[in-house]
């Protein structure tokens, strides 16, 4: 496992503090990190940014080609074929001023009319970036259907559409993302997005079938079988 104690400390930690950090590392490990700016020693080795400031959050998402892109209000949100079948969207974050080890990331997409929501929550370690922020990832392989890197993103299950009273494509939905760190510091953001069936050809056809309003489970949408992933 790569060490997450890198660089120099602004203040030499006492032996007691060092011991606490080492013990904490044994317990929770550390984020998958690159060499990075020095964290505040009082904040702990997993901390990103300034512990005295409020957490900051930027939203990210995966495109169909696996690239990780920023997500702003009004943006398109890729609806993608995942290994498990159906259609999901992959939402990630950039965050700072919080503890990046063992954060709880929750992503949710809401039908703005009925307020019905689909969500995915997961515990993960943020990666330390060179600018001092923590991220959920830097993208996945081009073939998302065979990539485990998507496990570091919130996998919001959207289709088959047995929950929204509208097509889950080409219409505006509300995206809400909440991050809670191990110290219970919390930050959230809510924006409007437009889900788009993002893969061309047969996958787009199947996406528009699985994600349409009124889809009935078992209705054939011409889907392929995906990849080995167990029962």
């Amino acid at each position, binding site marked *: 496992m790569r060490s997450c104690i890198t660089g120099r400390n602004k203040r030499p930690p006492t032996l007691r503090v060092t011991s606490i950090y080492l013990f904490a590392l044994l317990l929770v*490990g550390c984020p*998958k990190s690159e060499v990075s700016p020095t964290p505040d020693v009082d904040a702990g080795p997993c901390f990103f940014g300034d512990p005295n400031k409020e957490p900051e959050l930027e939203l990210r998402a995966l495109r169909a080609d696996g690239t990780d892109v920023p997500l702003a209000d009004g943006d398109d949100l890729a609806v993608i074929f995942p290994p498990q079948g159906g259609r999901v969207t992959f939402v990630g974050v950039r965050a700072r001023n919080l503890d990046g080890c063992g954060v709880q990331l929750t992503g949710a997409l809401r039908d703005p009319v009925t307020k019905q929501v689909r969500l995915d929550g*997961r515990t993960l370690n943020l990666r330390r970036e060179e600018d001092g922020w923590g991220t959920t990832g830097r993208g996945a392989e081009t073939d998302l259907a065979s990539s485990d890197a998507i496990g570091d993103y919130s996998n919001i299950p959207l289709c088959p559409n047995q929950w929204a009273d509208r097509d889950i494509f080409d219409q505006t939905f509300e995206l809400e993302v909440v991050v809670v760190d191990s110290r219970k510091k919390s930050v959230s953001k809510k924006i409007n997005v437009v889900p788009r069936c993002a893969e061309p050809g047969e996958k787009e056809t199947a996406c528009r079938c699985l994600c349409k309003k009124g889809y009935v*489970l078992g209705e054939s949408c011409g889907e392929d079988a*995906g990849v080995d*992933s*167990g029962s």
Partner: protein
Amino acid sequence: MKRLMIALPVLLCAAACTAEKFDEQAPLSDPEQLQAPLTGEGFQFKTNLFTVAPGEERQDCYFFKVSDLAKSGGLPENEPVNLHRVRMVQRQGSHHMNVFRVRTIKGLDPAQGRVSRGLNGQGECFKSPNWSDWPLVANTQSSGELDWTFPDGVANVFQPDEWLMLQTHFVNASTQKTPDDAEVAVNFHTIPKDQVQHEMGTLFATKQSIRVCKSNPTPTFSGTCQFKGDQPVNIIGANGHFHSRGKEFAMYKWDGTSITQPPDSDRFYQSKTWDDPPMLRSPNLDTTVQPHGGVFFTCGYQWTPPVDSVGCQGLDAADKSPDKDCCYTFGGIVEKNEHCNAFVYYWPKQAATDIACN
């Protein structure tokens, strides 16, 4: 001779009745002991005996056509089957047994053979996208017998042209053992159409992009699934499935709109025993979810070092992520993979369809 002709049916009846009476009193452990339903009251389907060698995980998918099963049980083969009581018996070593309705045909096709066998993660019967829209019918993870009679007037209704898929998974490895030959038997007991007041529905929800890693050793994954209907839903059965790193599987009644975990008072299922999870069912489980609500479920894990035969090298080899961290990822191999699957049974069925949340 005449006396013998009279006596023989009596003896058969006596034997059958004795067996039925015995069955009701003591759970069975041997599928061979499971008596088929009386003619005209249901049918039985089962596997043959098969061997699971040391170190093997065997997952097989068996196909049965509903009309064939109905005919075998003396039921009209061209009429719907109204399942009201299910009995399932499996030998020791079973990891799980599921029955699904066949829907979209992908890699698993009854036209390609009545059995599709999978070994150690290989084969179409191990590919979950093959049954991603196949509604659940029944499931159990416990060795021995599951016997469940639905509430009065409730039935799971099957059309005669439907196919059912029985999936068995036996493990003979470090975490689970199959000491003898494996076998599974299932009884479907039916009720007449005029006794059916409510149709049962099933909900299957799963989290599949999961990772339980050395550097993130206590992750929790959560998800939701709506019933989507204008009327209240009565949950009468629940079962959660994960593997040996699983510490707590919980299900909650959910309002369909909140994104925070519901309070403990709304929890209707909890499992802390990965290899013998409770199969809660009516009459002990009978809880109501309000219209437009659903189920909120969580899977909590504790990372542990892999068994020696796998090692971190084995986990890393199976991990498609570029960041190797001795992670258990989603899949059917108990020693290498994890699961987070929720099975829920309810009535009345909403919008004439079952529910799947991938």
